[in-house]
């Protein structure tokens, strides 16, 4: 078993597609809230396999896409502080800030370094004792443990030149906010790897509150179609609840070790999301005891409130109100080579996924 080909099997795809066609009667609007799903749905042409009354819409699931523009400006401002060396995941480089991007700053000589893992940032701090390493902590439940490990390692090593700028976010509060805003969602394709870490139980409150159907899903075509079939069945039977399609990687309680590290290092705070605005208890910041590693507390920069680029409707795309091709800049002024908004930058952004895969 390689956990890939088996879940791309054409005969199984056909079979599940037929079952969906057979069982689905009522119109159904499903949202995926993971950028990995957005990409897989487009890449494998899933919408073309479904009856026309089943609509798939993308939500706020790509970490760089939902990062507020002011936060991008802040990262750029950090690179302008003397002595700072930035360590960042590559996705962030081309996201446009108000006047610049990390890519442009790097071209003009800023010390911007791409890391694949948070531990590379720790290595960088050890190798450069006279520099301040700022690591951009970005991502949802899946990525936060990597930042927690880095902070714990930095403390163990007694580093005084390693700082995290936490832009980490939590998925359930955003899923709640969308429903609260009145956006029609009949079911969620639940984010697979977010739930690998956090556990399917984390959606219980959401289900209780909104009587919504959530199916935690894997990333291959068979996974996605099986999840849609499960959502169809829940919808036809008017059933709310959390079900797990992606059983090979997800349990109800998640990964206890990863969760422990996250709760040892971070605490919940309010957070601004691009398109969704401020959502209570949807972000994570470093706890007081780790304040020595908090970039916000140790490297002061002054950053004014930023505004979205004119014409870009990323905010509506991220809430499932508009589709990328509703944007008049889509494919014209805004392309992956020249992104205007954040949703065109990452391969998991809805605009880029639509642009590349139709």
């Amino acid at each position, binding site marked *: *078993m*390689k*956990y*890939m080909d*088996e*879940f791309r099997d054409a005969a*199984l795809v056909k*079979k*599940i*597609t*037929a*079952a969906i*066609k*057979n*069982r689905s009667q009522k119109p159904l609007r499903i949202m995926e809230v*993971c*950028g*990995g799903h957005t*990409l897989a749905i487009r890449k494998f042409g899933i919408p073309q396999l479904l009856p026309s009354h089943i609509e798939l819409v993308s939500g706020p*699931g*790509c*970490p*760089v896409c939902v990062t507020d523009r002011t936060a991008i400006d802040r990262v750029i401002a950090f690179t302008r502080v003397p002595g700072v060396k930035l360590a960042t*995941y*590559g*996705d962030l480089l081309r996201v446009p800030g108000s006047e610049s991007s990390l890519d442009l700053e790097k071209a003009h000589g800023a010390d911007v370094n791409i890391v*694949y*893992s*948070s*531990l*590379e940032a720790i290595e960088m701090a050890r190798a450069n004792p006279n520099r301040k390493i700022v690591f951009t902590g*970005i*991502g*949802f439940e*899946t*990525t936060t*443990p*990597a930042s927690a*490990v880095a902070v714990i390692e930095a403390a163990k090593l007694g580093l005084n030149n390693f700082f995290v700028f936490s832009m980490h976010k939590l998925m359930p509060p955003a899923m709640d906010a969308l429903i609260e805003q009145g956006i029609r969602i009949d079911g969620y394709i639940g*984010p697979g*790897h977010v739930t*690998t*870490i956090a556990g399917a139980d984390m959606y219980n409150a959401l289900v209780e509150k909104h009587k919504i159907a959530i199916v935690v899903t894997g990333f291959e075509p*068979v996974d996605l179609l*099986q999840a849609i079939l499960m959502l169809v069945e829940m919808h036809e039977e008017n059933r709310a609840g959390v079900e797990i*399609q992606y*059983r*090979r*990687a997800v349990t109800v309680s998640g*990964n206890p*070790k*990863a969760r422990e*590290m996250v709760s040892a290092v971070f605490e919940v705070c309010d957070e601004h999301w691009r398109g969704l605005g401020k959502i209570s208890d949807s972000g994570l910041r470093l706890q007081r005891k780790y304040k020595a590693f908090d970039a916000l507390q140790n490297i002061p920069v002054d950053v004014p409130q930023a505004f979205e680029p004119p014409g870009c409707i990323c905010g509506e795309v991220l809430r499932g109100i508009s589709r990328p091709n509703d944007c008049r800049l889509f494919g014209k002024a805004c392309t992956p080579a020249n992104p205007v908004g954040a949703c065109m930058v*990452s391969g*998991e952004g809805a605009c880029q996924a639509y642009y590349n895969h139709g």
Partner: protein
Amino acid sequence: MCLSIPAKILSVDGLMAKASVNGAIVNTSLHLVEDIKPGDYVLVHTGFALQKISEEEAMETLKLLAELDQGNENTML
């Protein structure tokens, strides 16, 4: 960056492992997982193994799908 890929563990050295992703060898941290040995499949995300993949559950899912009742044959494409 949400992407996590299945990788086969080749060797383990303390908290670091070498894993194979479709033949390419990657370094993987084992800080977040326990009891990982060569031959296991794990999900790798930003250089960290997130979870061991359960072969048992994968087989069970595929078995259920193989037995799936498609419904009325006439309405099939």
